[in-house]
């Protein structure tokens, strides 16, 4: 159900964006890990207390930091992991289908003996594989970085669980982007939904973190289903993970079906 030449062309079209995002993440990851110091952890917490609580909360740095895993969970998985790969998925999700339809190059793809479903599946496969690759890369580099700098300090099982959560979150997010890409015939609308929604989620998440008065905003954000502080306790994440998987499956399926059925003005 996949078209090899199309997959090859899509990789060629997008690998540079992927490399850039991985590159930026690879600057942050070692920096954050190296900032961890069991002895100065106390003083860092003291310093954070001096800053306005709302500012720190909005950045997701609110939970008390005790060990290496919760340190990374707070400083890397609280905000950076929500932002940087999101940029990648927004760009690429739009490119998979909507931009081909918008520009008209889809006419050429569909003038070959490949069904619409096959083309959509190939593009969905690329999106899922590339984001899996990205998160896997982050996971492996995070583990090796910790092992080099602080051998034995990282709770590896908890770290992998945390990354699995991030991955499932991105399956759901790319699902939304992919659906928008399939559903709309132009880049403008595809981005309005496929980029607008994730960005809005991120803003709601930040607003809800500020304080109790704005707490209800978390019900408007998909990111609420990925809560690093809860995940590293090893409990209470199962339902969230399941919901993320369901959202992912539903969105990708709906995207492929809508592309299969719709009218294309190519």
């Amino acid at each position, binding site marked *: 159900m996949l078209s090899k030449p199309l997959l090859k062309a899509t990789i060629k079209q997008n690998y540079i964006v992927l490399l850039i995002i991985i590159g930026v993440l690879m600057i942050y990851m070692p920096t954050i890990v190296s900032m961890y110091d069991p002895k100065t952890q106390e003083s860092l917490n003291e310093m954070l207390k001096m800053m306005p609580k709302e500012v720190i909360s909005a950045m997701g740095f609110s939970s008390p930091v005790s060990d290496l895993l919760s340190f990374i969970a707070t400083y890397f998985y609280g905000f950076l992991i929500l932002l940087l790969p999101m940029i990648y998925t927004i760009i690429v999700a739009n490119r998979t289908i909507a931009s081909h339809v918008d520009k008209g190059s889809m006419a*050429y793809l569909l*003038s070959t003996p490949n069904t619409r479903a096959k083309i959509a599946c190939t593009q969905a496969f690329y999106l899922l594989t590339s984001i899996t690759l990205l998160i896997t890369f982050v996971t492996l580099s995070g583990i090796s970085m910790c092992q080099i700098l602080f051998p034995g300090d990282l709770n590896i099982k908890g770290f992998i669980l945390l990354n699995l959560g991030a991955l499932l979150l991105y399956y759901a997010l790319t699902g939304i982007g992919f659906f928008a890409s399939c559903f709309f015939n132009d880049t403008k609308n595809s981005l309005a939904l496929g980029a607008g929604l994730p960005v809005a989620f991120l803003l709601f998440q930040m607003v809800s973190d500020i304080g109790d008065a704005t707490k209800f905003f978390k019900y408007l954000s998909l990111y609420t289903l990925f809560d690093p502080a809860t995940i590293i306790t090893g409990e209470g994440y199962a339902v969230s993970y399941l919901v993320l998987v369901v959202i992912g499956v539903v969105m990708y399926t709906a995207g492929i079906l809508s592309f299969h059925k719709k009218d294309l003005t190519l």
Partner: protein
Amino acid sequence: MSVIEINGLTKDYGNHKGIFNLSFQVQEGEVFGYLGPNGAGKTTTIRHLMGFLTADKGKASILGKDCRSESASVMKELGYLPAEMAFFDGMSGMDFLKFMGEMRDMSNTAYRDALIKKFELDTRGRIRKMSKGMKQKLGIVCAFMHDPKVLLLDEPTSGLDPLMQKLFAELILEERSKGKTILMSSHSFEEIERTCDRVGIIRQGELVATENIHDLKEKRRKIYLITFDSPASAVEFAKKDGYDKVTVSGATAKVCILGNVSSFVHELGKYNVLDLDTESCNLEDVFMQYYGVSNGNHSNKN
């Protein structure tokens, strides 16, 4: 055997846009010209044949297969040239042709290379930087390179210079002699006249006529521009009966003639003719001549 079959095809976009109860067939080995002003529904018809659109009513099929539900299977035997050139960003001409070949599982590249040579296509450059004519040539090579049985060409010669238009006409005739079935749309009568066996004329989404090209030519009036040595001779010429319509301006007379021109030539022999020229008919004139359609409702679209 009819290769392309359209039966009662309707797609209503509202506002009298779209196509309405369209029916026609294209036989095997036939070159069918699909003629109509801009916005008449030519591209909408072709989109249905390509399986891009689902019809409100009716059916379109190619080689007995439904164009919408079995489109991938239809594409095995089909070459398509879209009206708008949109390729893949960043690919070179050759990258694109190779990519399309792989998408089609095409193993033999001999015909592709022959076409590249015939049209003097420079395949090294990036598509983004190509001129409109070069892109059009690339599209033509892409449509023909896998030697398909059926060809759908949407305004194939737009952007080509006269020399390339001639080459293209030769290619069409060559493909016809191989027994290919071709449907090509156009808004230029001259283009269709050179290559097609039969013509369908569409106006405001409805097929107003399908005619054999020879019948069309016979019914067609031609416009001649004659420049005489003096305005007086022009006026004198215009007084002569037997022509449908003569207009004089200065020493030049403009005359419409249907069919045989021998009496016209004979008559001209009596004068000192400085110049004789024909004026090409645009589609509007063709409509006027064959169907007596008044200018009113579609002139603004052309």
